[in-house]
């Protein structure tokens, strides 16, 4: 029973919830902060020729964004508790409300609320990025620029890529890591709830800052932001730099928080070998986030200095080097793609045993695979620079490490194959998406073999082959795993069942059109089509038209998903059972909807979650001391 003494909540709840510390106040203070910062920046820059360039004042823009961030966080109420303590007031923790939609628009310290906030917040920006992709494919219907002129097209490409990478970096760890990790390890909260809330609230801010680039006509560099083109660009580039900087901070913090939670807050009996494989995936991803995301911050900060303070870190004629940016960026960038892939591995290996009704085959091999991928991912980044004029003697080394990383990745496939063997497979929507993950990642991963071989990479680097490769691994892998996780866990997270028929229609249309969209792009890359171009050789028009039409249908399949969400969450609201999938996982043993404090008392873990088919296996945990285990 919850015996906490009710204390006044920090978040505003008067006048229907609109006045107080919430999202609306955050937006208001953020916008106001931007103009204040831009004004101050203008005063600083006045009279300094190198700071006032024709119609763009980068100092003003950056200061504006900085003040906007402070206003945003202040408007949400992040400074309330520290300021109160500094003023000597007593420490009060707000009572978390169990129901009501208003709590999702405020600063909440309940990891479950933050998980749902992440789901919709990151999901909304995912769809905005997807919209940009549809607009890109519209332009690519013709070999010349018909729809949008070249400058706007480049901004579309940059906005699509950056929005996707920024948002999908926390696509799984945000919603599902935050919501499920405490439940899966038997804890009541994450290690640092306030930091957890911060990592969420920085994310929509970064999305809005990135979209503000449109006001300055976008940015021309694509999501990789290569210097020195980045130094040359107009003020939209500043929006990209600042947004990505916010994300790098958010990623670092979410990694720290998850690592601390998994290491320190496991319930008694939750040994490392009983940890759900999803939590292992989260752990290996968190290691990457903590170590790699700060390097991105460094790369972007040097770019900010180049643009606003007349330094020449990346400008060769001033003594700098374009290679500095490329190496700093890709030192982050390569672990980043494993930040995207590893949670997907965790999800699908978590789901497969439930719907094959078999233990996870080769648990330790799976853990070794994930940790091996995480470790090796720091040693491969120069494969993005094979033809750039990097030190030629290092290319065989990076070829070897890049090829080696396919070994631990292959373990995941062996785990899946062993888990299916002699199972009793049920084809539910989560299972369909999890199986499609393996098909897509097979193609994506093996195309990586071509790219890791330097002679072959000479033709495919910077071409549509690379595009197809990473869309297969990121979209075919991570996004499919995201939908698998959504259909699997949303009944627990929202307490509402999703429509199964719409889910299966969503699956089949998405799977078919995804492959029809991206498989021909391997051919386009082999046939001399570089990336990020709006014009191409006329003989490639047939392929491009086929891909564009398939892409539009793929976008349509996403609309089916949204329709399912609206129908199920807004209209039908059929209550979900406690454990609709008959899973052994600990998160399924708590009631639906999950109580505010998760568990009544600290559970005692008795067995692993994958003991399907084992005669006489104990239940996964003893939830109440008085309960006698079977």
């Amino acid at each position, binding site marked *: 029973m919850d015996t906490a003494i009710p204390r006044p909540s920090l978040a505003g709840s008067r006048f229907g919830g609109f006045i107080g510390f919430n999202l609306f106040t955050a937006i208001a203070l953020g916008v106001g902060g931007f103009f204040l910062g831009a004004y101050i920046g203008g005063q600083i820059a006045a009279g300094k020729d190198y700071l006032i360039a024709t119609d763009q004042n980068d100092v003003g823009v950056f200061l504006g964004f900085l003040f906007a961030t402070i206003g945003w966080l202040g408007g949400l109420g992040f400074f309330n508790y520290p300021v109160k303590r500094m003023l000597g007031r007593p420490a009060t923790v707000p009572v978390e409300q169990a129901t009501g939609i208003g709590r999702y628009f405020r600063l909440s310290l309940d990891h479950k609320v933050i998980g749902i906030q992440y789901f919709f917040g990151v999901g909304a920006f995912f769809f905005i990025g997807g919209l940009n992709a549809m607009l890109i494919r519209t332009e690519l219907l013709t070999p010349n620029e018909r729809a949008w002129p070249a400058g706007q097209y*480049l901004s579309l490409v940059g906005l699509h890529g950056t929005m996707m990478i920024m948002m999908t970096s926390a696509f799984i760890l945000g919603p599902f890591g935050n919501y499920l990790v405490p439940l899966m390890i038997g804890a009541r909260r994450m290690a640092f709830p306030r930091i957890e809330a911060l990592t969420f609230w920085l994310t929509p801010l970064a999305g809005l800052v990135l979209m503000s680039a449109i006001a300055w006509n976008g940015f021309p560099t694509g999501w990789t932001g*290569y210097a020195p083109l980045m130094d040359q660009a107009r003020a939209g580039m500043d929006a990209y730099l600042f947004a990505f900087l916010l994300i790098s901070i958010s990623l670092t913090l979410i990694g720290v928080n998850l690592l601390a939670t998994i290491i320190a807050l496991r319930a008694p009996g939750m040994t490392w070998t009983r940890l759900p494989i999803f939590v292992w995936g989260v752990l290996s991803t968190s290691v990457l986030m903590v170590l790699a995301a700060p390097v991105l911050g460094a790369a972007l900060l040097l770019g900010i200095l180049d643009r606003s303070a007349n330094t020449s870190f990346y400008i060769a004629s001033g003594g700098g080097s*374009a290679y500095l940016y490329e190496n700093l960026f890709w030192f982050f960038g390569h672990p980043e793609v494993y930040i995207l892939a590893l949670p997907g591995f965790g999800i699908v290996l978590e789901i497969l045993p439930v719907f094959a009704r078999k233990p996870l085959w080769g648990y330790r091999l799976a853990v070794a695979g994930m940790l091996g991928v995480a470790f090796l991912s720091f040693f491969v980044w120069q494969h993005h620079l094979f033809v750039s004029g990097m030190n030629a003697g290092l290319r065989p080394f990076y070829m*070897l490490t890049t090829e080696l990383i396919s070994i631990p990745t292959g373990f995941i496939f062996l785990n899946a194959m062993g888990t299916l063997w002699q199972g009793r497979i049920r084809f539910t929507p989560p299972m369909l998406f999890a199986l499609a993950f393996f098909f897509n990642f097979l193609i994506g991963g093996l195309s990586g*073999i*071509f790219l890791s071989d*330097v002679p072959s990479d000479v033709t495919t680097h910077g071409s549509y082959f690379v595009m197809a490769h990473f869309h297969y691994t990121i979209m075919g892998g991570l996004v499919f795993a995201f939908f698998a996780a959504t259909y699997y866990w949303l009944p627990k997270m929202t307490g509402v069942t999703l429509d199964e028929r719409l889910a299966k229609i969503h699956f089949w249309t998405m799977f078919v059109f995804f492959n029809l969209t991206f498989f021909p792009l391997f051919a386009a890359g082999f046939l001399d089509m570089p990336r990020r171009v709006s014009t191409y050789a006329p003989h490639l028009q047939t392929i491009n038209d086929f891909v564009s039409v398939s892409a539009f249908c793929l976008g349509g399949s996403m609309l089916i998903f949204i329709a399912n969400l609206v129908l199920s969450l807004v209209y039908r609201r059929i209550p979900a059972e406690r454990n609709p999938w008959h899973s052994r996982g600990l998160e399924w043993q708590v009631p639906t909807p999950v109580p505010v404090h998760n568990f009544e008392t600290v559970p005692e873990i008795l067995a692993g979650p994958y003991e399907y088919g084992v005669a006489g296996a104990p239940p996964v945990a003893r939830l109440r001391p008085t309960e006698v285990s079977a």
Partner: protein
Amino acid sequence: MTALPEPVARVPRHLRRIVVIWAVLTAIAVPLVVLVLGPHLPPGRMTAEAGAQVDANTVMTALITPIVLIILVYFGYTLVVFRARGSAIEDGAPVFGHAPTQTMWVAFTSIVVIALAAWGSYTLIVSAHGAGGGQGPNPIALPNGYQKSLQVQVIGQQWNWTYRFPSYGGVETDQLELPTGVGIELHVTSLDVTHSFWAYELGVKADAVPGVDNIVFVHPRKTGSFSIRCAELCGLWHGHMFQTGYVVSRDAFKSWIAAQQKAESKNQRYLPPYSGHYFPEPLRRAG
């Protein structure tokens, strides 16, 4: 139906079936890949380096085909044979792992991967002398007789390519013609931002980085035309940095370069001296 594992005698039958299906499909697919698809794999055989890339692509496609097939056949078979029948929830066999299978898998994948890396390194450094990729200012994969190569500088700028021939008085042209049967040493550099010189049929790609002399060796074998594109996003007209280059006979090249020298003679005195890289004004914010 019970939850006990299937009788032992039935397990080898499944495995045998999977292996047989896979073997048949592989026997059909691999020759198709090597003989039918192989000759059409990019980037063609106009140069020795491009030919090396075609061979690399053919070998890798032929190697990946059986791997793809075994995974697809296995998944397809298990998803059909081991699916749940009826609506009752019943458990499968409680198998947690199998050490010999895991060891074999690790060993097999490691051998394949290390062999690929070794063979790729050999191709890159020894047999294909860089395979058409930019090696930077200190190349290590040097072809025989590289000291006698024809030096051609490729200058990337926003948004066009120009070329300089140091052994012909440093003449600069805006079209590229190369002689066949001659070793060519391309020096790729940029005047402003990072571009990438991608000559598709030549099998050449080298980033044009400001302040860097990126060296590529290429040996054309056949005459013909090749397309030149920029493969690194460089600003507004990145997609429009398209040209057609030509590989011509040695005599045709000589007369072409002589014509270029004559046409450029009036402008020649304004060109800077030939150098590995250039830092032309304005450098910082202009104006």
